[in-house]
């Protein structure tokens, strides 16, 4: 029984899930816990995102998302629009100015 279940999962489950969601890593300019909270909130509330978790040491955010609903560029733009660099895309300067001191360039 177990074997049948597992083979079913292997046959249908894995490809199905793989197509439904993707995990993306974006290099950000986050500097402190405030940045972490802002980035995670913005991405978690964005369309098509399953979850987003930022590692403060590497400044890389892991985003699990549904490719049918959003894409890499859209997710990068979420970060740009709230004042953070996303991979090679520069932060929106107006949004960057509005961030708290510890998130400003050289804040840490």
């Amino acid at each position, binding site marked *: 029984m177990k074997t049948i279940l597992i083979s079913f999962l292997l046959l249908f489950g894995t490809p199905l899930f793989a197509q439904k969601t993707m995990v993306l890593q974006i290099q950000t300019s986050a500097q402190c816990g405030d940045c972490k*909270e802002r980035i*995670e909130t913005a991405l978690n509330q964005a369309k098509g995102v399953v979850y987003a978790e930022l590692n403060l040491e590497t400044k890389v955010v892991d985003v699990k998302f549904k490719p049918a609903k959003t894409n890499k560029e859209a997710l990068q733009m979420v970060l740009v629009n709230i004042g953070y660099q996303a991979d090679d895309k520069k932060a929106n300067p107006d949004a960057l100015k509005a961030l*708290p001191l510890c998130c400003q360039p050289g804040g840490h």
Partner: protein
Amino acid sequence: MKIKLFIAALFWSALALGQIRGVVQGADSVQTKPLKNVKITLLGAGTTVYSNEDGTFEILLGKQQPDTLLFVAKGYRSDRLVVTRSDRFLALNVVLVSGQLVQEIVVSKQKDAHGISKLKTLHVEELTSAEFRKAACCNLSESFETNATVDVSMSDAISGAKKIQLLGLDAVYTQLQFENIPFLRGLESAFGMSVIPGTWLESIQITKGTGSVVNGYESMAGLVNFEFKKPKEMPRLGLNLYQNRFGRTELNLQGGQQLSERWHMGLFASGAAVYGNFDDNNDGFRDQALSNTFNLLQRFSYQGPRMEAQLGVQAYADQKIGGQSSYTKASPVGYGMQLASEHLSVFSKTGFFGKKPAQSLGVIAQFKYQNMSGLYGLRNFSGREKRGYLNLIYDDIIYTADHKIKAGASFQALSLSQWAGQPFGAEVVGADRTEWVPGLFAEYAYAGNRLSAVVGARYDQHNLAGGQFSPRAHFKYALTPQLDARLTAGRAWRLPNFVVDNLSLLASSKTWLAPQALQPEVSWNVGASLVQGFTFKKRKGSLSLDAYYTRFSQQLVADRDSLSGAVVFKNLIDNSLATVLQAEFSYAILRGLDLRLAYKFQDVRALFNGEFQTQVLLPRQRIFTNLGYQTRNKRWSYDLTYSRYSAVRLPQGGQGSPWGLLNAQVTRNWKQLELYAGGENLLNVMQYHPIIGAQDPFGEAFDATELWSPIMGWNVYFGLRYTIK
């Protein structure tokens, strides 16, 4: 066996690895406060952590020792500290000195919603705003509903007023504070808890045992401090709405604003109404009293180079009408309950900083006016209170920050006039009194490698109670880096006020037999606790055990056993005590799924009707379970709380049945908006005849005070929180 091995493994791993923990603070010319997100690097091992919201951090030592910790924070000078394995018992206290102008440091929500502080010498349980969101309600008494330490119950079946108990003793034996200012005392103690909205709160600290002498002499069972939101850190706008199926609506507003470089202002406003006329048990009485409450608080904060200040003014009005369904204000026919209460208070807290960084002088001042009047049936009550409070605290260190000293003087003045009527006829029990209480105190705190201690004493000269000396001592010892043992012992006292302390007992036809003389209540409290923290499968948990014993050398008790037609107030000498044991376990059983289990045993006894027996209407045992789940993207949170209470003893013999309470809530979070919906008392537990003699409310048998479980059945509520940062 497996569990033993597991625990042994925990001890061993913690010892072998050597975990260092502590708190980082930032000191500038204005103040010293915990710093969050300080980058802390262990240079040899190459590991980096960031300090938490409250400045605390934990880091594992590597193989290379001694190693150097490097602390880096924007706006502060970086600091280095050499650490070795022997420092693993030490709670490091690192103070970074400001490098330039004061920087804005935004403090937001704490990480853990609930926990016992590792660094404090006293056993302090901390509840934060994340914890209050688990039960989206409403006022101070209800904010304890997801907590096992404090019990919430209703005081009578007519007014619906809720009361809290700590260590099996009523709230009057616990010192309540608003940011270290006396709070909800005197006339307010009967109904005041339900007036303050929970959404105004930032956090609550519950200290078991007598607490610090700096705060006063009244903490016989413990000390509960309520921290409200601070003007500097408040959102620009916060809106909260609540509605339940029993016709209760609440609207709470708050907003913070920067007035100038150094001044901030915060404004809080709240309106609450209960308008649902329900009589589900068909006894002719409203199951809940109708009420209207308005509450305003405006506060200011100032931060300057040599001083800081907090100023504020609070005003509220509370009106209740309850009793038989036919009874209204326009046509007061039948048995009714009414309350009209007004409150005005102003407070100020100022701190002046000395030339040395740790030297300061604090001045706390408060003036309060309270006016209250009302009735239970034919029994009127009224009171007027004016209270002034002043506390001066000098803070300094002796040579190093390991030895701290606090000393000061306090002064209280009270003018209280009150009156209460008997059920039949006009005989009056009441008292007018004026109190003058000058006091002196000193406290020494030591923070060592494994041991820390707080030893203090205060002397108060009360014009009615005489001179009272209150020595207190608290110790904490780190048995292992993860296991803390605490001991506490101390004396506390208060001057009782049998009318206000027992106001809800007016909801009965029983005559009151007043005490012979006004005597202070005096108690000794001793307690011990063990808190074991652990990390299992990368998720944190804790296990705590504590026991507290309160022995009254003098206590004023309400004896409801001696006479069937009366409540006898007696001064007992060496004839009452309370023993409370509590065990609590918390662990994240899966990612995002937190479990909390608690068991409490309370044995509260006094001499009632010549027999040393259990306090009436108090459950001897309680089991508490809380399960909280938050999705990985934090969009949804779910909460489930179940409390089981054992049977209670009834006055004049008999037992009330055991009961259980099940509450659940779901919250959906967006960027600025949170929507919540929940249910209370989902098992629909009700005490079907909460009012004895309800058919004849003016008869001799009438009694609405034998209440132990809910009057109303299942409840559903929903609401929203909207925040602009």
